[in-house]
């Protein structure tokens, strides 16, 4: 007994050491539980981050669009008369954002915003000889746009050069049209005459549909083709916190009157899939925690029964109910804490093994796991609290033992 150490600590640690087998088994149980939680959480966080990274590498976090055109009936019903009018939704023309330069400047000044890039885009026909494809043309300022979508990283042949007569297109479109870098293709807008552009680069955007449809040209080239002289049809934006994109979008909308779509809204299905994973993970965590709690409670109940004579002796020697209560609460907390330390090492080792053993064919990890120190700290705190809560019933039982009965036992 070290001087100065509270009685509760001394007794709790002696009891735990005395019941060695029980202590080791339950610590093993707790650490497996904690290890599973840590591994699962890291895997899920890594998977999510990876998915989001993939989704966001091909699209901006927020896209500013001109307001939708709506149709209004010209005649209002006269007094006392009701009018049955069928209002047909108008088709959406390729339109520019009103005063886009001012809007862009205002948005760029917002602290949550990192990059902004204007774009003029619309539908055109791409043709080479007899082969014709309907594609979408995106006129961008390469310096600004490449900070949002890193086209140069996705180039499979050629380079991401976009001067007036250049065009970069997706791999599947290139193979459909049978073109390679250096060939020329004709781009024809819906109205007006087409122009010939030279293919400088072919990109893989990671999605067949997108690879068949997307073509990139210089901003003023697209403006001329689409009849949007001096205007842009959208503004791409990246933000600091991708999860806050929807809030930022709403703030931009409110401040500028322009429609702002965040990636969260435009990828609602993806997001609900992510949410389903989070719910599944939380459910599993909850039940693993419950199993841990019951395990600790069971061991402590047995311990109280085994130690009832000692409890009686301690009470006869002047131990208060509170002291007995705290001895067992402390044992629960210690079991949780020690288990969480062992479990954290176990989980960390499993994460390491996973990353070493489970790899893509090219040798890169299947997906990087997130080893957040907060995850380990959180697991320790949670396991300790679980142990404490689990110990309440056994501790109360110990504290309420009648010393007379306990000593006779």
């Amino acid at each position, binding site marked *: *007994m*070290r*001087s*100065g*150490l*509270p*009685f509760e600590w*001394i007794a709790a640690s*002696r*009891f735990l*050491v*005395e019941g060695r087998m029980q202590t080791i088994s339950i610590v093993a149980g707790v650490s497996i539980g904690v290890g599973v939680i840590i591994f699962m959480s890291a895997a899920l966080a890594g998977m999510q981050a990876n998915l989001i990274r993939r989704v966001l590498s091909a699209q901006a976090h927020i896209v500013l669009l001109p307001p939708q055109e709506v149709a209004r009936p010209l005649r209002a019903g006269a007094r006392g008369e009701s009018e049955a009018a069928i209002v047909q939704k108008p088709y959406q023309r390729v339109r520019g954002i009103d005063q886009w330069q001012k809007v862009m400047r205002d948005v760029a000044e917002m602290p949550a915003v990192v990059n902004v890039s204007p774009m003029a885009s619309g539908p055109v026909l791409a043709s080479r000889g007899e082969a014709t494809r309907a594609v979408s043309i995106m006129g961008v300022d390469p310096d600004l746009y490449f900070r949002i979508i890193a086209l140069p990283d996705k180039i499979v042949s050629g380079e991401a050069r976009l001067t007036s007569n250049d065009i970069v297109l997706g791999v599947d479109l290139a193979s459909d049209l049978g073109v390679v870098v250096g060939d020329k293709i004709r781009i024809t807008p819906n109205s007006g005459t087409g122009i010939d552009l030279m293919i400088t680069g072919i990109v893989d955007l990671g999605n067949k549909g997108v690879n068949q449809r997307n073509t990139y040209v210089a901003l003023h080239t697209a403006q001329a083709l689409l009849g949007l002289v001096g205007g842009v049809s959208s503004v791409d934006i990246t933000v600091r916190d991708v999860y806050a994109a929807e809030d930022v979008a709403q703030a931009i909308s409110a401040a500028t009157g322009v429609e702002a779509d965040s990636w969260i809204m435009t990828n609602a299905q993806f997001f609900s899939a992510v949410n389903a994973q989070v719910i599944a993970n939380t459910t599993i965590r909850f039940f693993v925690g419950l199993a841990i709690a019951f395990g600790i409670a069971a061991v402590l109940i047995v311990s109280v029964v085994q130690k009832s*004579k*000692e409890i009686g*002796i*301690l*009470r*006869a*020697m*002047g*131990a*208060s*109910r509170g*002291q007995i209560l705290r001895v067992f609460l402390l044992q629960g907390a210690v079991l949780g804490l020690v288990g969480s330390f062992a479990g954290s090492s176990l989980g960390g080792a499993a994460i390491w093994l996973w990353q070493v053993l489970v790899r893509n064919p090219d040798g890169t990890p299947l997906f990087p796991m997130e080893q957040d120190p907060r995850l380990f700290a959180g697991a320790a705190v949670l396991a300790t609290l679980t142990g404490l809560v689990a110990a309440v019933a056994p501790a109360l039982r110990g504290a309420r033992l*009648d*010393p*007379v009965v306990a*000593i006779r036992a």
Partner: protein
Amino acid sequence: MPEAVLLLEGVKKSYGVGTPAEAEVLHGIDFSLGKGDFCALMGPSGSGKSTLLNLIGLLDRPSSGRLSIDGRETSGLDDRALTALRGHHIGFVFQYHHLLPAFTALENVMMPMVLDRGRPNEAMRARAEELLRTMGLTEWREHLATNMSGGQQQRVAVARALAMNPSLLLADEPTGNLDTKAAQVVFDLMKEVNREHGTTVLLVTHNHELAAQCARTIELVDGRIVSDRRASAPAAPATA
């Protein structure tokens, strides 16, 4: 007359109150012990000795009657106050020596002081070492209780009972499962404590030889005191 260390007036104890099996075990016990008394409590099994000892030790409450320790009436006290009173005024020695198996002899002796103050200190260690020396157990102080003989364990238990310097030492057949020689050693140590510190001792025993060495003997039969004798002369310590 000096204030009684222990005073019982009309103490009754019933079990199963309010049930068909209600049974009164003690039917009104009156007696008192003064400072320095050395009293044996005898009686056949089932006579209520242990029940009475539990009441005196404040481990249980009487159904009616008054019980005072060192002049303090106990009937109105709550569990916390009873625990404090027990810790400070009463030392226990049980039949089956009841040491804490996870602790060494020295730690067992320190335990009542540790429980009282909440944490151990050097003064407690020194007092425990002194008590063990008195019991002739200095070289056993670092041994776990489970590695000692019955007689040694019971001497540790006596040392532990004396740790808080109690005014009343309660011993429930402390020699019950010891051989004659070891029993006499334990008994002599208790007598020595009684003589040197004036500690009042109440000893429950079946052993007539030991009872004969006590200054006073109370006999309990069927929950009533049937005799209360004082030896005319201080009993001489028996020599084996």
